[in-house]
């Protein structure tokens, strides 16, 4: 059973800028990622927006392995600030999961 945390998006947004709602799932970011990350950013951002907290927590390695190189961000047709969003997710995970 999938549990939904209706407050997840608000909690993440409290940690910093997070504008993932504009993502239209076009896949440009996935195609350009030098690490070949397939679930970041599209799937994880969607999980945050939908409140699927367990799925977000299961992808800590993906969030922290992102290079923040901004190849995806500067090419995003929806102008989603992808790298900034990833950093905001790190802030959130450091607070809630790592207790830092």
């Amino acid at each position, binding site marked *: 059973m999938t549990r939904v945390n209706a407050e997840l998006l608000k909690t993440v947004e409290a*940690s*910093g800028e997070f504008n993932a709602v504009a993502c239209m799932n076009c896949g440009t970011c996935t195609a350009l990622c*030098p*690490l070949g990350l397939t679930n970041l950013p599209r799937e994880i951002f969607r999980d945050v927006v939908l409140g699927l907290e367990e799925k977000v927590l299961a992808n*800590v*390695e993906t969030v*922290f*392995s992102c*290079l*923040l*190189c*901004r*190849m995806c*961000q*500067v090419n995003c047709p929806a102008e989603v600030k992808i790298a900034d969003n990833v*950093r*905001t*997710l*790190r*802030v*959130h*995970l*450091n607070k809630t*999961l*790592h207790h*830092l």
Partner: protein
Amino acid sequence: MAFPIRHLIGILADNQRLRGSVMPLGTGRLTAWAKGLSLPRGGSRVIYTGHMYQMMPSLASMEAGLGLMADTPVTRLMGWGRFFNRFVNLSFFLTWPSGRQQAQYDLRLKKIAQSLRQAGIQFGYLYEKELYTGALVYDLGLDEVFKKHAQRVWAMFQKHGVRSVITVDPHTTEMLREVYPKVVPGFQLEVKSYLEVLAESGWTPPQALTEAVTLHDSCIYARTLQVSAQPRAVLAKGPLVDSPDHAGAATHCCGGPAESLYPHKAETVAAERINQLAARGCDTVAVLCPICLHNLEKAGRARGIRVKDFSEIIG
């Protein structure tokens, strides 16, 4: 066995909070590069190293150790390591930077300062008063630690009357130009990379440079700070600058940012980037960032490609 990044991030956060840097080094080590240059102490315009070049040999040593530990039961002890690190600076005991590497990184900083002087640029240096910007803790999302440290850095600039800085690496430049103004109230500082300063001055290397190099653009310089034309302008009358397919704003990452937490992933990305650069047919690659330098140098060895800092090409 999964790598316990929680404890590793915790150690870096503790080091930043308790000792002012993710990789605390003595002031002698941090300022060794300036020996013999007679740089004026302080001034309204200073060269600001941000400690990145000085830290690289120690970070490389730490990463090598972590790489060996990554899939072993030793990782279970990292929680204890973090606990003891709060009282004793473990990085002092656990990192064994190579003296040769330290001398090489120091020489790169020296060459940057010498090139600026040749271009007629006047600047001072804060020596032991200079602080690290906190770039790594910012990237890792340790915002509370970062914001407090950024306030200290701004107080340092104010105390010494600094109004303008010449930076030497993209990470420090991004912190001071893009991030600090958002998190430090009243922060106001002119921030220029030495590449921008040299290009604006019209300076070109005085000696004939004939060796062809392929330029690897830094992601931050090229995509965030729009610094990619400047190094090419400095080299305009020098060696052939043979740009790779992925150049300027389309540059491919060196993998370095993953090095501290996921060294194996960093190696994979670096190997791919070196293959792209090697495909241009040049034996020498010039880089603009100490992290790119460290990461691509390792990958380059396997392909017989020499990776040099930009300062070594022009100085």
